[in-house]
């Protein structure tokens, strides 16, 4: 007998909300602000809250056996895969432009006369790379301390590394915001600016989402929802954080460094 929880209304509502968010965004870009966007944004946010609250409550009811947890992990991995192809589409556009530059750019990449506006990859972006790689290390260390703690004893070191991870994520975001504010490059600085900002902008959004996920899971950890063998929520947040780190590595190598020779 498979351990399957009961029917839930949230997948349907979540998918309606996701569809409305994307289509109302397109309507916004063409026709001006759309209230439907605000409504659908809160629908999606609410779905996240209620759906995952249901999962947490099912866990307290005893549904989260070891084999059941593998289903939850598969779901999380599939979601991260969908994010991979989401970023893949923007990377495709970027490579399409930079490997065969068009006449309007002067048949060169970066576009003609862009030398002064591109960001030096070995100043702040390199620092950001080090920050994110270190946060990957600290989140793994945190996982280790959770695994070796018993009955939530010796959890203190896990909590410390957890806090450091979130702190590093916030520092990264702060540095990116500073870069955006100080840069002479803008979204409509030809296709170079568009590609750069859509990639780094969505990446920053995903770092924000990852930091929020880690914070929520931290709160659950501090309120003793996890044990050293059942912490799927933490693993999901940690995987998401590693995914965000890998996307940044691709960004740093192909967009900041190789895509902008000086």
């Amino acid at each position: 007998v498979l351990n399957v929880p009961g029917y839930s209304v949230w997948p349907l509502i979540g998918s309606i909300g996701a569809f409305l968010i994307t289509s109302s965004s397109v309507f916004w870009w063409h026709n001006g602000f759309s209230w439907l966007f605000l409504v659908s944004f809160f629908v999606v946010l609410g779905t996240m809250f209620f759906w995952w609250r249901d999962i947490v409550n099912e866990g307290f009811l005893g549904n989260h056996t070891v084999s059941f947890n593998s289903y939850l992990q598969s779901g999380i991995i599939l979601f991260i895969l969908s994010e991979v192809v989401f970023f893949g589409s923007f990377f495709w556009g970027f490579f399409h432009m930079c490997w065969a530059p068009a006449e309007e750019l002067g048949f060169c990449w970066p576009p003609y006369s862009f030398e002064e506006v591109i960001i030096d990859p070995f100043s702040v972006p390199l620092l950001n790379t080090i920050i994110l790689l270190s946060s990957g290390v600290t989140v793994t260390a945190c996982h280790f301390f959770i695994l070796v703690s018993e009955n939530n004893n010796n959890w203190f070191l896990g909590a410390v590394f957890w806090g450091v991870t979130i702190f590093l994520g916030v520092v990264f975001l702060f540095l990116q915001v500073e870069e955006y504010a100080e840069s002479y490059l803008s979204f409509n600085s030809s296709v170079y600016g568009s590609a750069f900002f859509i990639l780094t902008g969505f990446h920053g959004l995903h770092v924000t989402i990852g930091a929020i996920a880690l914070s929520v899971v931290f709160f659950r950890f501090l309120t003793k929802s996890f044990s050293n063998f059942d912490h799927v929520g933490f693993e999901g947040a940690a995987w998401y954080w590693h995914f965000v780190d890998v996307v940044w590595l691709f960004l740093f190598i192909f967009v900041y460094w190789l895509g902008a020779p000086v």
Partner: protein
Amino acid sequence: PITGKLTAPPYDPRFPNMNKTRMCWQNFVDYHRCVNKFGEEHKPCAWFQWVYKKICPNEWHERWQERVDDDAFAGRLK
């Protein structure tokens, strides 16, 4: 301009493909670089102009010429 010729620009092995966009652009750019370096009266520069006027669509080289006059052309002409 070279008068009396009824031929087309010769095969340029730098641009072997059927799509001659790059050949048009390169000759346009080379004409302006030639003129900027050696002056408008320099006869060999007229070769590049003949080539690009023959193979470029008029829309293209007229649009680029407007941009050159506005100092807004996306290419190094100096």
